[in-house]
């Protein structure tokens, strides 16, 4: 058995069923070994960035570690963005890249680049595999590191000659990572402290992030027992169903007014698996000025105290900690607090579409109505992403797949591929922007190749809409370099050219029928949604602002 076969054998032993990748000179032995190995299904992507995002979508939506392959040099470098994305959003990923032969390393050989060097800051850990006998151990370690503690991407760079060397060792090896011992069980004393602090709270909020995606059940019990209002971050959506009566929306820049006001008034914040990102806190000096107690539950000790000082830090796995807390949680007296919250909700409903034009809000709602939220969603980055975050009530844990920390345009389509592969029988909808889609649109070919029935919805506003919104509001309408409309392709025709169904929707009246037809179609569909050019997404807190600065409608429409 050579090194390449050893790699595949080790992956199979890790339970890997699906891989996303692109072959090339330096990883050809691995592809050669794959040719006669039916146990693993490989998805040939059209770009390595796509392979990385597909592996992310697979991992986020299923909880299983995603695997991506790329060749040396340009192949591996193309994947850097997806690794960085996975690092920011704590996605468990194992990337295996080919490298030039050991004797050529360091000589500027053809397609050589220092991939372990380049990816060092954007991976949780990486390896340059130097000895064929190390393959089983390193692959085992990589899967442990990727999935345990705070998850993240691990890259293994394998020189081509190592892939060809003969392997004679055993697969029954022990990992050797003495420095890797994540704390999973929260300290009982801290848990007791949290319970004590909760008892006195009159205006508590529960802030739930992506780190709680596996804690859904315990979190729900805790929330229902205490009666606390629940705020889900962009990455925390679906931990509790979006329609749950205690869920009051998303916090931060495009969060609901109610969620932001609740944080401002709260006397206690219990943060679970979230890291107080600046898109959530805005101006830190003005963030949560009335809070007396912050209980911060996170598996990564470095996140605790990094942005805000926690009065009750609990390092541990969210599921474990929440299960403990749920058992003992007190029922809180929150009538007055809920009265206040319901009043805010009444005074500050989400913006409604006006006029007869087809709007982004209509589209998101129509697809939700038709599926009752029983669909997995991926998104690009921009206004459409925020419309989706606000109006799509996520019903499934791990059901909202979006690039949060890195904000990577082009994420949606390749991520949806991974989601569909992980959930072949579920509806997968990719809410995409016309700008975002054009960063990775070659992956439409991948949808066609594998007949993955993803519904690609292009929110076609002819603009880099989110940038336009900022220019409109903060740069005096100086619309510099955001115009896509003069040269956007005809997306529906483009889809047809790729060999999939393409549809154009221009009017509100067409929507219902188009939604039904799209969802019923057994294959992939692209829907070109001609939405107004000048939509803006509200509520919005300008960057660096606080809840006091929240804008709920366009200043020019205010008072009209």
């Amino acid at each position, binding site marked *: 058995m050579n090194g390449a076969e050893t790699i595949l054998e080790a992956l199979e032993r890790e339970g890997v069923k699906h891989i996303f990748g692109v072959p090339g000179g330096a990883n050809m032995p691995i592809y050669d070994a794959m040719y006669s190995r039916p146990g693993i299904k490989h998805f040939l992507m059209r770009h390595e960035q796509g392979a990385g995002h597909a592996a992310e979508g697979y991992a986020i939506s299923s909880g299983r570690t995603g695997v991506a392959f790329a060749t040396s040099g340009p192949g591996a470098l193309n994947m850097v963005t997806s690794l960085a994305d996975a690092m920011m959003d704590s996605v468990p990923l194992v990337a295996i890249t080919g490298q030039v032969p050991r004797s050529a390393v360091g000589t500027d050989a053809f397609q050589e680049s220092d991939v*372990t060097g380049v990816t060092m800051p954007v991976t949780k850990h990486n390896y340059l595999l130097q000895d064929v006998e190390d393959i089983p151990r390193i692959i085992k370690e990589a899967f442990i*590191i990727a999935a345990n503690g705070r998850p993240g991407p691990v890259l293994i760079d394998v020189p081509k000659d190592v892939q060809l060397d003969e392997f004679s060792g055993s697969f029954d090896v022990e990992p050797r990572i*003495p*420095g890797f011992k994540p*704390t999973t069980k929260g300290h009982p004393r801290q848990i007791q402290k949290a319970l004590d602090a909760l008892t006195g709270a009159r205006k508590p909020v529960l802030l739930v992030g992506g780190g709680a995606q596996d804690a859904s059940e315990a979190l729900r019990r805790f929330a229902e027992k205490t009666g606390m209002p629940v705020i889900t971050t962009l990455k925390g959506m679906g931990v509790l169903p979006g329609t749950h009566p205690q869920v009051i929306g998303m916090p931060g820049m495009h969060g609901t007014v109610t969620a932001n006001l609740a944080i401002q008034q709260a006397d206690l914040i219990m943060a679970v698996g979230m890291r107080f990102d600046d898109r959530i806190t805005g101006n830190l000096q003005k963030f949560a000025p009335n809070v007396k107690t912050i209980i911060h539950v996170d598996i990564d000790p470095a996140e605790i*105290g990094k942005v805000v000082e926690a009065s009750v*830090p609990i*390092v541990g796995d969210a599921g474990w900690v929440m299960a403990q807390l749920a058992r003992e949680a007190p029922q809180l007296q929150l009538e007055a607090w809920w009265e206040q919250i319901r009043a805010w909700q009444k005074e500050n409903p989400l913006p409604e579409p006006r006029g007869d034009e087809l709007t982004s809000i209509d589209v998101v709602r129509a697809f939700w109505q038709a599926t009752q939220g029983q669909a997995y969603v991926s998104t690009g980055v921009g206004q459409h992403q925020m419309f989706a975050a606000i109006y799509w009530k996520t019903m499934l844990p791990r059901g909202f797949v979006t690039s949060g920390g890195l904000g990577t345009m082009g994420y949606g389509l390749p991520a949806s591929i991974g989601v569909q592969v992980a959930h072949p029988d579920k509806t997968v909808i990719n809410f995409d922007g016309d700008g975002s889609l054009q960063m990775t649109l070659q992956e439409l070919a991948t949808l066609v190749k594998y007949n993955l029935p993803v519904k690609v919805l292009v929110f076609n506003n002819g603009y880099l809409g989110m940038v336009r919104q900022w220019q409109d509001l903060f740069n005096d309408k100086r619309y510099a370099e955001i115009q896509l409309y003069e040269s956007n392709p005809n997306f529906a025709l483009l889809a047809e050219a790729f060999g999939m169904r393409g549809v154009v929707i221009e009017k509100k009246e067409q929507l219902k029928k188009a939604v039904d037809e799209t969802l019923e179609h057994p294959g992939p569909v692209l829907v070109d949604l001609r939405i107004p050019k000048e939509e803006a997404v509200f509520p919005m807190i300008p960057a660096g602002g606080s809840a006091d600065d929240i804008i709920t409608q366009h200043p020019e429409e205010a008072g009209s």
Partner: protein
Amino acid sequence: MRHLVSVLVEDHPRVLTRITALFARRGFNIESLAVGKTHVSGLSRISIVVLGDDRTIEQVEKQLNKLVEVIKVTDHREPHVEREMALVKVHTEGVEDRLQIKEIVEAFRARAVDVARKSAVYEVTGSPGKIEGFIEGLEPYGVLEVMRSGAIAMSRGESVLKPRMKKEAV
């Protein structure tokens, strides 16, 4: 505030790069850094002098702990010994100068490790403050070259930096 942080690491290629890259990326300030093998094969020990407030140092420790090859981190707040070594090459022409230099060398318990016609190299060990004092004392005669090792540290008493259950923080 100046902190001395000792880091026990696996002796792997690039582990030093990982650490310095982490410092650069997160904007932590390194004043000095010294690395060496330990008595345990496969383990190296790094001493880093970091400048920063308590919150920064807390992040330094926590972020270092996240590196897979880092076994243990300690910020020496407890009673500890701190030492640095320096080699200082001084211009020594003129008999009078030599005598005065000798006095300084004795006062700092330094010693000559190379003596040539117009210059000498002295070795001095001590706290970084002592080393600075020594160099300053020699300044008037013409310091030609200085090489400092960077500070290294060790706790006093029985406490030992060794592999142990780590990351049981809080």
